[in-house]
């Protein structure tokens, strides 16, 4: 019986060759008539084909990425001298814009964005002039169905569009994607001094940013500068606004060091707000209040809520006088250990460490805590 010719080997996979050898070693009748063996062979064939295809795709992707990187390097080498010379005042921005081919507009705007994110003042104005002929692309991108493209458009317009970009960016604050709305809010901060219209739109949109967390929203608000202070103070005092928006407003006012917001904090604390709003208002008062505001903090050191007491003790430590040492010593015995810890630090802060030493050397239940505060 003549041996059956070898079946065609799909690819050079070592595993497949071995299996093929095993298969051809079998009798033809056993191999051709056994559906199980045929299925195994076809499966191996499919796997090998898939491996080849995936490898080819990976290779093509790699080549494409290298080509893209090489193009990016070529473009950077072509544009960077002009950008640096323009920024330094040694070249005209219009000369730079003329170096851009129509298909390179987006790449050029992204290139300028790198510099616009680190530069301000006249240098950024130069970049904006260079970008101006191509910014229509970013404006069109605002209508793109992909939220990431709209986010990119917001960033480009904020960094390179100047005041002219405000209209489209304000409109983007109501975008269906909160991510895009947040990008627009951040981008607005880079378009120059706030105007009442954009501040109103910005504060009205704050509830949309609840998912980003207080720190991120406060950071965004702070970027708009002290001129948004009055609007944030009004928002803080508005009981119809969400708790998170009011807390973010208070935190932004604290970071801005807006002394004028102290009266808003006092008014809020007098209105019986939710716990987190109280805590945020007390943190704000601690940062921007004066000794005249200590009376508010003093009253809240006996609040029923330990979170409010904690922040009241902290505010009193900053705003109060040595006369408040008795109250802080009392707070050292608070049922909440967190209030007690803050009171111990507060005693040091107002210069009443002697009281802390007395507690530390006694059989007071918080003597250990007092010793720890003294040691820090």
């Amino acid at each position, binding site marked *: 019986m003549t041996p059956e010719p070898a079946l065609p080997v799909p690819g050079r996979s070592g595993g497949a060759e071995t299996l093929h050898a095993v298969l051809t070693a079998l009798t033809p009748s056993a191999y051709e008539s056994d559906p199980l063996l045929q299925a195994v062979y076809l499966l191996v064939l499919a796997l090998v084909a898939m491996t080849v295809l995936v490898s080819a795709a990976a290779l093509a992707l790699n080549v494409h990425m290298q080509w893209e990187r090489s193009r990016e390097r070529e473009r950077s080498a072509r544009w960077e001298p002009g950008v640096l010379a323009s*920024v330094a005042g040694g070249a005209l921005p219009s000369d730079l814009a003329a170096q851009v081919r129509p298909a390179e507009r987006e790449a050029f705007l992204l290139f300028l964005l790198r510099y616009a*994110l680190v530069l301000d003042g006249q240098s950024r104005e130069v970049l904006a002039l260079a970008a101006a002929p191509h910014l229509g692309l970013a404006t069109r991108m605002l209508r793109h169905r992909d939220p990431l493209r709209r986010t990119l458009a917001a960033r480009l317009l904020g960094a390179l569009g100047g005041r002219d970009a405000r209209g489209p960016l304000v409109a983007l604050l109501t975008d269906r994607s909160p991510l895009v709305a947040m990008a627009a809010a951040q981008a607005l901060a*880079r378009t120059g001094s706030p105007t009442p219209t954009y501040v109103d739109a910005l504060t009205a949109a704050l509830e949309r940013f609840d998912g980003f967390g207080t720190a991120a929203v406060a950071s965004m608000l702070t970027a708009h500068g002290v001129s948004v202070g009055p609007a944030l103070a009004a928002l803080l005092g508005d009981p119809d606004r969400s708790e998170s928006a009011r807390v973010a407003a208070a935190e932004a006012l604290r970071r801005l060091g807006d002394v004028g917001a102290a009266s808003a904090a006092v008014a809020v604390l007098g209105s019986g707000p939710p716990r987190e709003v109280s805590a945020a208002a007390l943190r704000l008062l601690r940062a921007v209040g004066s000794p005249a505001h200590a009376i508010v903090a003093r009253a809240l050191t006996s609040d029923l809520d330990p979170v409010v007491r904690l922040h009241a003790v902290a505010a009193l430590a900053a705003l109060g006088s040595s006369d408040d040492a008795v109250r802080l010593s009392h707070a050292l015995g608070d049922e909440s250990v967190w209030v007690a810890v803050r009171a111990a630090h507060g005693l040091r802060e107002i210069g009443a460490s002697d009281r802390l030493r007395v507690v530390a050397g006694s059989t007071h239940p918080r003597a250990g805590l007092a010793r720890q505060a003294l040691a820090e």
Partner: protein
Amino acid sequence: MSAPLAAPVRVLLAEDDPATAAVLNHRLQRDGCEVVRCEDGSAALAHVAAAPFDLVLAGANLPGLDGLSLLSRLRSGTETPSIPFVVLAWPGNDALVARAFALGASEVIVRPFSLVEAAARIHRLVRPRAV
């Protein structure tokens, strides 16, 4: 006979953000400084150990050894305790700025910055021989 030219101010620019490094490098070179660039704190430390510099400009978030650790190391060194040191920071981190000054930073420049103002702040710190 003309007076000998003053040696250029030697600046070590340790910054990993290419755009920041490029604009500062271009500006400082245009102002007559000799700029040595690197992208991480460990390399910056090696550069300072190898040759003297008149000023160090370092990003706060450098890879390897961050800018504040680099500052701390230089301030505690015997050769470099008083070298002018400028920290380049990103916005929104007041605590970092305060810490930089506490560690002895001569200046902190927060991005985005005006290049004219940044250059003025940097030049104020170096000897006026070259700029």
